[in-house]
């Protein structure tokens, strides 16, 4: 299983973290620090797998972001690379040429997307189209609810 997902900027700032195994808050901070040091210092030609504390961490750099996923020893690293790419492509389609800034200001949307791809550290959906459709449907629901709320408050404020 995937134990956690971390998105790191080149300067070591955390853009997204998702934990599928029990890590306490302090442990999480330590893990992030360690992995930042380990991964950010690796050269570009080296392989994308790092051994860390009995786990394997698969990472890939997209522009200024490092996408890192920590897996067990017996998992398929090449598949995880594909899952990372899957995630990035869906983000790309959703945001339209996604960049780091998109992920900073719309982090909650990035999380929603991740939740449609992975649950319990396992892959949920291999079809990008399906994921996009589900996200779009939920976004529509949010929009509709906001509009309704807006219109009700309008009515109330107009009535007052």
């Amino acid at each position, binding site marked *: 299983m995937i134990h956690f997902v971390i998105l790191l900027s080149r300067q070591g700032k955390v853009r997204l973290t998702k934990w599928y195994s029990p890590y306490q808050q302090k442990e999480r901070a330590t893990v992030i620090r360690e992995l930042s040091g380990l991964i950010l210092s690796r050269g570009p*030609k080296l392989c994308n797998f790092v051994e860390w504390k009995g786990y394997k961490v698969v990472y890939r750099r997209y522009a200024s972001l490092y996408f890192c996923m920590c897996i067990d020893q017996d998992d398929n690293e090449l598949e995880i690379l594909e899952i990372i790419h899957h995630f990035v492509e869906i983000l790309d389609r959703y945001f339209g040429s996604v960049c780091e800034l998109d992920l900073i200001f719309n982090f909650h949307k990035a999380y929603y997307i991740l939740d449609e791809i992975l649950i319990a550290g396992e892959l949920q959906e291999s079809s990008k189209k399906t994921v996009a459709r589900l996200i779009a449907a939920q976004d529509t629901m949010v929009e509709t609810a906001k509009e309704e709320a807006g219109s009700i408050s309008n009515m109330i404020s107009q009535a007052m």
Partner: protein
Amino acid sequence: MNPFSSGTRLRDMIRAIRACKTAAEERAVVRKECAAIRSAISESDQGYRHRNIAKLMFIHMLGYPTHFGQMECLKLIASAGFPEKRIGYLGLMLLLDERQEVLMLVTNSLKQDLNHSNQYIVGLALCALGNICSTEMARDLAPEVERLLLSRDPNIKKKAALCSIRIIRKVPDLAENFLSLAATLLKEKHHGVLISGVQLCTDLCKVSEDASNYLRKNCTEGLVRILKDVSSSPYSPEFDIAGITDPFLHIRVLRLMRMCGQGDSDTSEYINDILAQVASKTELNKNAGNAILYECVETIMGIEATSGLRVLAINILGRFLSNRDNNIRYVALNMLIKAVAVDSQAVQRHRTTILECVKDSDASIRKRALELVYLLVNDINVKPLTKELIDYLEVVDHDFKGDLTAKICSIVEKFSQEKKWYIDQMFKVLSLAGNYVKDNVWHALIVVISNAPDLQGYSVRSLYKAFYTSPEQVSLVRVTVWCIGEYGEMLVNNIGVLEVEEPMTVTESDAVDVLEARLISHSSDTATRSMSLIALLKLSSRFPPTSGRVKEIITVHKGSFVLELQQRAIEFNSIIQRHQNIKSSLVERMPVLDESTVIVKRAGPSQASISTEKSNQQPPSGTSLKLPNGVAKPAAAPLVDLLDLSSDDTPVSAPTSNDFLHDLLGIDLTNSSSGIAPASGTDILMDLLSIGTPPVQSNTSPEISSDKGLSLITKPASNSVHVVDLLDGLTSNGYLPEVHIPVYSSITAFQSSTLKITFSFTKQPDKPQVTQILATFINLSFDAYTDFVFQAAVPKFVKLHLDPASSNHLPSNGNGAVTQTVTVTNGQHGQKSLAMRIRIAYKVNNQEKLELGQINNFPPGL
């Protein structure tokens, strides 16, 4: 609703934080926002809860504490609207972890949401449950999830399946509930459901043996069908990745097949064909294809495959190895390490490629390749392989050098068939990477050299040459110094020249030069210098003309700040000056060291670790133990571990074989080692000699003292009549025993946890055979002893006379002592030494107690 009441919008807050130039500024902004959020929470402001939680999540990602927002998440989850629930669940998953008790409060909301009519809300709940539920929550909500597995909506089904995975991981007992449901999932067509379903089945197999059997029986057919369909399906843009339809599904099905086929030959046979098909059809050039092939190879290795299939798998790995992509090579090396266990021959074919990988620029690949090479070494290929590795050792980076050296050393040790080859390789390694070589390795080398008399000349000459090329390698220097000391005359007189050697002339003063240089050089540490001092002493005896020069060199160090060096210098100086006659016997060639220890290491690495553990308990080499009478002893040198004596057991009080003492006294010097002094009664030595193995150096004297409390003797006999300075103490590795000032000092004859007996001796000058012993008894326990009776027994040639004791009441805690005079007459004085068996009886707390002992540590010459 006042649009200004709740402060900034999320976007503005993020902008403000990003605009901060310093950490302090950022902290200030964050603090302000947190304060606003906190007041909004306490006022139960409904309107901007959504936004506040979003802000709180961002602040949490920056690393600030946000626990005050946890209850807000719960309230959001409990609200009716979808947007609130959505952000509430997200906040829950981000701000809480499963160990927080607040999580329990969500159980009810989760239950309601799992039964909601809105499918998306059900989805939210399943997602949250699947990501962070605790064991209790899993147990509580499992029935709901089971029900949802039967839902019609594939979105719900797939989420429920993954949620079930978490549930059975947390509560393995519930696995059986999910079994049949999971099996039905495999009949679905929807890819998302298939993927989750297959994953659920895989986890069920991991968790429960029954599940594994059930799935094996019922689902294998279905799995093969799924794989066939997906691998032969036409192009589908929705699932296509790099020309392959849904590689994720491929991989998961392959994995489940592996779990089913493991250990079961029928299933393995059944899936043979489809595996072969996938393995041969899939293309190698894209990562997706490689991922599938990798999983395929893993599956083939994991089941009971036919040999044809295995060969196919290893060939795929071979192709991986030559791929330029680092990832693929890494993965291949990993797999090959596992494959070696299965089919070593096939892997051997790829040896050259693997060797290339050892030299790769990527550290992970290098490490893996080295491990693999180590597994591939056998008697046939060991020589070329070692040559390659040693060649590489010259150019390797520092961080990798240690690993590589260790591996080379252990390969050479394990597989060396001839001593000469072994010695050659070790010399090369020492000159290239001596600093990384561990102590036990070069000790083993010394043992081997001492066991190969025909190669000793060759060794010392090669070392001498190597020394000039790489003087900075510490272990090389030490081995060289030792060899020059021991085999100096072979070096100078070109004894035992092998055909392959070039002629070389080394004069005596050259040899001394080398040693002097080591002594003086700043880069030598204390151990090296100590060894040089001893080697110099040996040379002064082997090459008498250099004696004067050696003496000068040694004298310089009499004032050294390092205690060990100073002591040695003083002692050796006094040997050279005053004890010319025994000097040669002192520094005689060391006896052959016991090679069985080195062979023991070959057989089992665990042994070596046992011995190294023992050495860790002993004082580090170079320090000395101080004995009660202030004379220090050389500490246990690491060679002791090699000797791995029956020092597992506590030293046995061996019978006082006086022949042993005979030998030590110099009557038969060819057998005795230089420096095994007649330490009368050091048990370890007696053990060794009575066993009859070549007299081994033993430095376990510290061990003895810790084991039994027998202090080590340091009494060389001599009085004015006998000039024999019997050197006490034990040596190893060329450490010389000290020369002791001739005095009869008292000994601790017997020591247990409750009683200590010391003997002090006086002799009358006209009666050398008679010794008066004053025995002092000290009570070490907390209770007083009464009716104290001391009895002694002596060998036949000794006469014993016991005077009455001063009292038979021994106060506790050494508050008083009882003394008793014992007169012994040694009928064979000068030939045999004293020994005594003692028996002490006393009463403590109205209980009779008896202690028995044997005293072997009488000073010789009594």
